[in-house]
């Protein structure tokens, strides 16, 4: 399959599923799994099946900027083979630097072709952040800056998906001091095109598939929370679906890695688990075909899907470093110093009072003593 010769009427997803040799049973299994992940009701499964059977595949342009491609990696490893084979394979991708067969001018032509032919129809997926420093020279493809490419591609897209923490929050390249001014795409995109953020480093493959299936099935973006993430996957904290949660509630914690409590599987809160502040579906969907997730492997959540997660303090500490006071200081250290200083100031003030206001206090005492005397009989 080559991408440059786009057929007049693209095949439907189901046609592609059949062509690839999957059975009807595989297909239905895939749909059911997706519907469950998306939190759809059982009655909606039929709707998803119908949509995939009848709707021609949606053209997708997948751009890569400042990133490590872990989102793509995660996607193609998602648990159901149909995800990689049908949703992501050449079938659905009209342009993707990583996975397309074409290269050079051919590739550029393919993207241009898609953008013109499917004006307002195609989905734009963006992996990676956009550097804005030095006019964007830190990330250029085919002689254009990522900013220009993004602007062009987004102008006529039906929807934009920001894959992963890079595109959603900036991720590691935007950590202080952020030399290239790596910027998440919602800050450079002009308002107007609907944007879905799918943060995580990387996001879970099934979550990515779920977002795409939702777009395909319903023809509109899924319900988003206030930060622009699909509610179906980002409305609960990792902590809320964590199987170690009973230990947290009981107050039983791992004190250091490899201690007795770690062996017992106690809660990882005190060794820096960020699960209580991280919104993601790891505890439910897990990774690698539902095998495990970091906490199950004995490592705290590092909050990879949260904003600024590289600057949010250390990975193995609860209390965060306090910006500007050296990496060792946290809020409590500073608080204790301030408390000691306050104590000293109060003591100094008490002494000064007795010296400087001696007369006043003396007079009050004198007055009081006099009254006491008058009461003596």
């Amino acid at each position, binding site marked *: 399959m080559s991408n440059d010769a786009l057929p007049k009427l693209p095949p439907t997803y189901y046609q592609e599923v059949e062509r690839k040799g999957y059975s009807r049973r595989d297909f239905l299994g895939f749909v059911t799994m997706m519907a469950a992940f998306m939190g759809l009701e059982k009655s909606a499964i039929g709707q998803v099946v119908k949509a995939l059977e009848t709707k021609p595949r949606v053209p997708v342009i997948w751009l890569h900027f400042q990133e490590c491609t872990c989102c793509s990696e995660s996607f193609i490893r998602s648990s159901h083979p149909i995800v990689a084979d049908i949703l992501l394979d050449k079938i659905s991708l009209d342009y993707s630097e990583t996975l397309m067969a074409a290269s050079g001018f051919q590739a550029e032509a393919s993207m241009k072709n898609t953008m013109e032919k499917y004006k307002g129809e195609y989905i734009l997926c963006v992996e990676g952040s956009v550097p804005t420093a030095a006019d964007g020279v830190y990330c250029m493809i085919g002689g254009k800056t990522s900013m220009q490419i993004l602007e062009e591609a987004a102008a006529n897209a039906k929807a934009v998906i920001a894959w992963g923490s890079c595109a959603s929050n900036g991720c590691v390249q935007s950590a202080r001091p952020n030399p290239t001014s790596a910027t998440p795409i919602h800050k450079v995109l002009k308002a107007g095109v609907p944007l879905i953020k799918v943060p995580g480093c990387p996001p879970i493959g099934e979550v990515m598939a779920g977002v795409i299936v939702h777009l395909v099935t319903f023809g509109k973006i899924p319900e988003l929370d206030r930060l622009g993430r699909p509610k179906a996957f980002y409305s609960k904290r990792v902590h*809320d679906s964590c199987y170690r949660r009973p*230990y*947290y509630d009981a*107050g039983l914690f791992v004190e250091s890695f490899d201690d007795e409590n770690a062996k017992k599987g106690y809660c990882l809160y005190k060794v820096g688990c960020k699960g*209580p502040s991280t919104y993601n579906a790891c505890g439910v969907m897990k990774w690698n075909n539902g095998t495990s997730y970091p906490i199950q492997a004995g490592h705290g959540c590092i909050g990879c899907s949260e904003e*600024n997660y590289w600057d949010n303090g250390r990975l193995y500490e609860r209390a*965060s470093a306090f910006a500007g006071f050296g990496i060792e200081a946290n809020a409590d250290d500073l608080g204790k110093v301030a408390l000691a200083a306050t104590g000293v100031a109060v003591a100094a003030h008490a002494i000064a009072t007795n010296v400087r206001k001696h007369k006043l206090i003396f*007079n009050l005492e004198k007055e009081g003593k006099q009254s006491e005397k008058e009461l003596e009989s």
Partner: protein
Amino acid sequence: MSDTAVHIQRLRRVYVWEKPVRIYHWLNVLVLLALVVTGFYIANPLALQSQHEATGKFTMGWIRYIHFAAAYIFFFNFLFRIYWGFVGNKYASWRQFLPISRKFFKEMWYVFRMDILMLKGREHMSIGHNAMAGFIYFLTFVVFLVQCLTGFGLYASTSSWWFPKLFAWVPAMLGGDILTRQVHHWAMWFFILFVVIHVYLVFYHDYVEGRGEMSSMGGGWKFIEEETFTRGHHQTPNPEKAKAQDGPVK
């Protein structure tokens, strides 16, 4: 020293802190104490129980429960105090807290010179809060608000009630729960420092003024010199007595 010059004051009982203000104050002290203690535990649970078995335990659960229960009381108590600032007596009035007049600034400056720099001069005596104290309480109320916003903001995603959900915009505005929690944690230290200074200053005023400052939050009374009445010297910014003289007095 001769005793002949002893000036015996005649004192008049003034009802300064009405009962609702006093109830507010001590309820606030109680829940704040609970919030700080449980807050510390939530932030860094002690290793006391590491040796215990897991069965039938709910320690963190209870601590958080107390934190949230106290948080609700704290919030509504705070709202009540704001309300009372509009219907209470002149010493409870909202005007006591906002530096919006020249007089207020003048008094703050004077308190600063007399009670902090310890300059000599005519002593400053106020009946309700002095202007400096009023302003500090205003800051305290602002931090109360910060704690309520960040606290209920964090609570929103774990609650199914609409009320905490009203605060869901707070973590969204700050960019997530992590920073929200940090702000919530830092703000706690404000209260700890405030309480040390506040309780010290209550002692201080009791000591240098001899008007019963310490007990005033108990019974509501302060004991004010007859002269203050006859000469109309009210230091507290007094909306009803705008003509009251500006200068410090003894």
